[in-house]
């Protein structure tokens, strides 16, 4: 084996391991999904209680209902599959961004709260959709888990659309 082969092997290993490190397995995907839903449930609860516009409060309440439903379905499935959600960097980063958003929202009142909450919902749902499309759905290996992710995707598209409509009406 000559030195060139060694360099090529190392390069392939590096690229390969980087790709592997970025691609979550089903247990990690489960943790990401549960965390992503919980983050929006927490923000929704805050909007229900602290929101000033009735539509913002109603939207928050719907986020709690919808994301709780999805979480229950996801949790039931991974329990049935014997998959234990495995904490990972992506889930942790979602959680910490979610916590930071809650802290910021708690410092706001009235229209400022409403606009900040809704702006975050727009950005957040876009982020979740990107994650679903680029990472979670392509990397889910269990067929039922993949099917669940594909099936809930349109709900998040609807949430994003709803949040954008709210954002427009609040800006008037």
């Amino acid at each position: 084996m000559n030195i060139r082969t060694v360099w090529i092997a190392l390069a392939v290993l590096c690229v390969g391991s980087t790709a592997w490190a970025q691609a979550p397995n089903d247990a990690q995907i489960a943790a990401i999904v549960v965390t992503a839903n919980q983050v929006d449930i927490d923000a929704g609860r805050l909007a229900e209680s602290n929101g000033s516009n009735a539509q913002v409060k109603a939207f928050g309440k719907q986020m709690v209902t919808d994301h709780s439903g999805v979480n229950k379905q996801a949790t039931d499935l991974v329990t049935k599959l014997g998959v234990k959600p495995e904490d990972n960097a992506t889930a942790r980063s979602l959680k910490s961004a979610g916590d930071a958003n809650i802290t910021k929202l708690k410092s706001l009142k009235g229209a400022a709260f409403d606009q900040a909450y809704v702006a975050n919902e727009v950005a957040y749902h876009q982020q979740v959709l990107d994650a679903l499309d680029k990472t979670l759905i392509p990397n889910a290996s269990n067929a039922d888990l993949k099917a669940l992710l594909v099936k809930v995707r349109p709900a998040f598209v609807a949430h994003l659309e709803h949040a954008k409509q709210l954002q427009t009406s609040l800006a008037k």
Partner: protein
Amino acid sequence: MLSSFADALTHQRPSSPFVTLTALRTLIGVQRHRLLLIVALLAACGSLAWAAGQTRPRGASVAIEGTSFVPPELTVTVGQAVTWTNKDPFPHNVSSSAGKFSSKNLEAGGVWTFTPRTAGRFPYVCTLHPGMKGTLVVKKEK
């Protein structure tokens, strides 16, 4: 009828395995015309029931799943019941865009039935999820 069956039985050796079969054959032989009449009646009833099923259509259904209505367009006749079933893990509703019909929010697993009384084309939505649309096409009864 029963007495000839009893006669058939008593004329056989009690321990023979063919007792019942022979008795049955005798019974059928003696009562063949009655048996044929019963079979004919049953066939007639069955055909009537099937025919009735054909002229009065069964209810049609729409599944609510993946945040969409499946099928997105359904055609029924006036007086034909339509049932929507929510198979998603969160609530949806069925609301006619022209205000012709409206379910309350259906929880996961919830079911709602509507029977259209007028013909027409009725677009509807789920008011909770923008972009979620369906159409009910109602034809006149023939």
